[in-house]
């Protein structure tokens, strides 16, 4: 079928799984109303005695009423210490009931939260907090000394001790950051256009960049989830992703909106398939959401046959391709739930989705498509001249609509380049993902335009790893390549040229990377070379490097 009409802009269309998704009627155009903190307030009123958040590791569990009260306490504390609307508040703490409370308290105070990986190197976290000039920080007691050591130029005084070993600490205000446009006049709680959070992702310059979302853009995604997943107050959502990872947006706000229970899974348990398998059974999880990497670990090492996982009704995955072989293995253990593949960079939230059919044909080896455009977004596919391509042709996926970010923190030029402007002035976020659209509006994922890869669901800019390697005193040159790997999805190879007279060991390199980068960015292999092959223009020849085998 030739696409003669070829509406460049795709919306939810014929052939899309509207009938299976239970999507709401077309009520969704335009920015979302309401705020994230409003979701909590409404549930406090409707479900005061239901459990809102539960932490099986510590045994803590609080009702909606308690969560509402503690959120209010935290907001008051922030305000007492002078927080203003539009300020940023860093969050550096392991996952806990208190951390969830802190996030809602920050939102209630009309500030934006900036969550970081508590296990990442403190220098990296301090760099992020400095970059967005946080006015205050909520930090776990056990982590505050490391942060102080990493940022000696700031006075990170403790302003107040909070519940459960969290501290409210003076921030890292950085004068080079221009203030935000003045917020609207004082009012009770935030408004939809206020900043809600900033999530930092790997940056190709070697420095992470902050993706800004407002209450409205997050809520637009949350509302879409309501329509498709039809949660109720009886649901028990897993919260597997750490809060600095964009999968956490669904985990945090969808259950809260519906009066359901959020079951926290800490970093340590989250990596151990045996403990996860028993947790899913004991906690009677109904909605699971994680990267395919974790689901693969569960299927391969979780001894799933031993557990009763019949409570599961939805299995959602996002962040990377799920090899169909492993998805099939998982479905053999868990035949009952519905499976959804969700796609979307941090910049757009989820913008396309696909429900995996109940039966996967044995003959299928190709991964499932990323699917159809979500209700609140619009998508188009363009070539290198920003011209729309026809169905069946490859091009870059661009996204516009309610769920799309406001921009990158303090990077106006990068923000400008990140969007394609159409003749009407509408901005379309360039995902950098190459896709192909089929006649029925379904998108197949083909690959990337640049040097970014997804590893365990996280974005990894290969250049950021190279920049870290160059900081090692014995490294004269570094080049990192990514290759598909049957086992881990993506294998990272670091090619390294050591300075004359020095010898490096693989173990030393791994340790150095682990001290300077999050674990998911540590290369799998290190390959030492005397020199790198070069292209005719004198650049490192990555293709040739990649082809050269490990000797």
């Amino acid at each position, binding site marked *: 079928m030739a696409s003669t009409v070829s509406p460049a802009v795709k919306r939810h269309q014929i052939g899309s799984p509207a009938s299976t998704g239970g999507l709401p009627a077309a009520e969704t155009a335009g920015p979302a109303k309401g705020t994230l903190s409003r979701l909590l307030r409404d549930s406090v009123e409707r479900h005061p005695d239901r459990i809102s958040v539960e932490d099986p590791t510590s045994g803590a569990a609080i009702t909606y009423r308690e969560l509402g009260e503690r959120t209010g306490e935290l907001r008051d504390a922030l305000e007492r210490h002078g927080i203003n609307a539009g300020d940023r508040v860093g969050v550096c703490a392991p996952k806990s009931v208190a951390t969830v409370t802190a996030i809602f308290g920050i939102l209630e105070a009309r500030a934006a939260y900036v969550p970081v990986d508590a296990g990442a190197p403190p220098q990296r976290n301090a760099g992020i907090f400095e970059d967005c000039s946080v006015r205050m920080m909520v930090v776990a007691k056990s982590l505050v000394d490391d942060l102080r050591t990493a940022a000696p130029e700031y006075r990170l005084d403790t302003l107040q001790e909070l519940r459960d070993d969290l501290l409210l600490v003076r921030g890292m205000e950085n004068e080079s950051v221009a203030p935000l446009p003045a917020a609207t006049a004082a009012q009770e709680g935030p408004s939809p256009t206020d900043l809600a959070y900033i999530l930092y992702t790997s940056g190709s310059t070697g420095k992470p960049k902050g993706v800004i979302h407002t209450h409205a853009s997050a809520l637009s995604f949350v509302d879409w989830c309501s329509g498709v997943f039809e949660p109720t107050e009886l649901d028990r959502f897993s919260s597997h992703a750490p809060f600095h990872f964009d999968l956490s947006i669904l985990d945090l706000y969808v259950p809260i909106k519906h009066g359901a229970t959020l079951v926290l899974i800490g970093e340590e348990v989250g990596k*151990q398939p045996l403990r996860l398998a*028993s947790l899913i059974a004991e906690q009677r999880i109904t909605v699971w959401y994680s990267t395919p990497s974790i689901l693969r670990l569960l299927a391969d090492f979780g001894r799933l046959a031993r557990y009763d996982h019949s409570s599961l009704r939805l299995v959602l995955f996002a962040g990377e391709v799920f090899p169909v072989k492993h998805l099939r293995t998982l479905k053999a253990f868990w035949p009952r739930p519905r499976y959804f593949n969700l796609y979307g960079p941090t910049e757009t939230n989820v913008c396309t989705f696909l429900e995996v059919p109940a039966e996967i044909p044995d003959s299928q080896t190709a991964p499932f498509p990323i699917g159809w455009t979500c209700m609140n977004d619009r998508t188009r596919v363009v070539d290198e001249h920003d011209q729309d391509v026809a169905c069946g042709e490859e091009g870059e996926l661009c996204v516009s609509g309610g769920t799309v970010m406001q921009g990158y923190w303090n990077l106006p030029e990068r923000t400008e380049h990140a969007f394609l402007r159409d003749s009407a002035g509408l901005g379309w976020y360039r995902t950098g993902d190459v896709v192909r659209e089929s006649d029925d509006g379904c998108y197949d994922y083909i690959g990337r335009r640049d040097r970014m890869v997804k590893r365990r669901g996280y974005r990894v800019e290969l250049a950021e790893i190279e920049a870290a390697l160059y900081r090692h005193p014995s490294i004269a040159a570094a080049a990192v390549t990514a290759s598909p790997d049957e086992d*881990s999805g993506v294998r990272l190879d670091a090619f390294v040229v050591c300075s004359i007279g020095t010898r490096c*060991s693989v*173990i030393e390199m791994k340790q150095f990377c682990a001290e300077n980068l999050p*674990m998911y960015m540590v290369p*799998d*292999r290190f390959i030492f070379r005397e020199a790198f092959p070069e292209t005719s223009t004198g650049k490192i020849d990555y293709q040739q490097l990649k082809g050269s085998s490990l000797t």
Partner: protein
Amino acid sequence: MQATEADIKETVKDYILSEFLPGESPDALDDSTLLITSGVLDSIATVKIVSFLEEKYGIELEAHELSPEYLNTLSDIARLVTARIAPK
């Protein structure tokens, strides 16, 4: 014949070198090299080592044993496995 701690260390060392540290000199990995807390092995590698140990030695490790406390060095691993295969 039952494997000794020294045998286990050697077997696990060979496995780690070939599986996770290709190209590394065997001298760089000794009995007390920190594997997990230093970032040499990630969580997926840890899970794979456990699976290897269970298969190789016909043992089953408990969920709580899959932590750095028991698996952080070759010595730790050998001690854990020895305790498991010892006749009760």
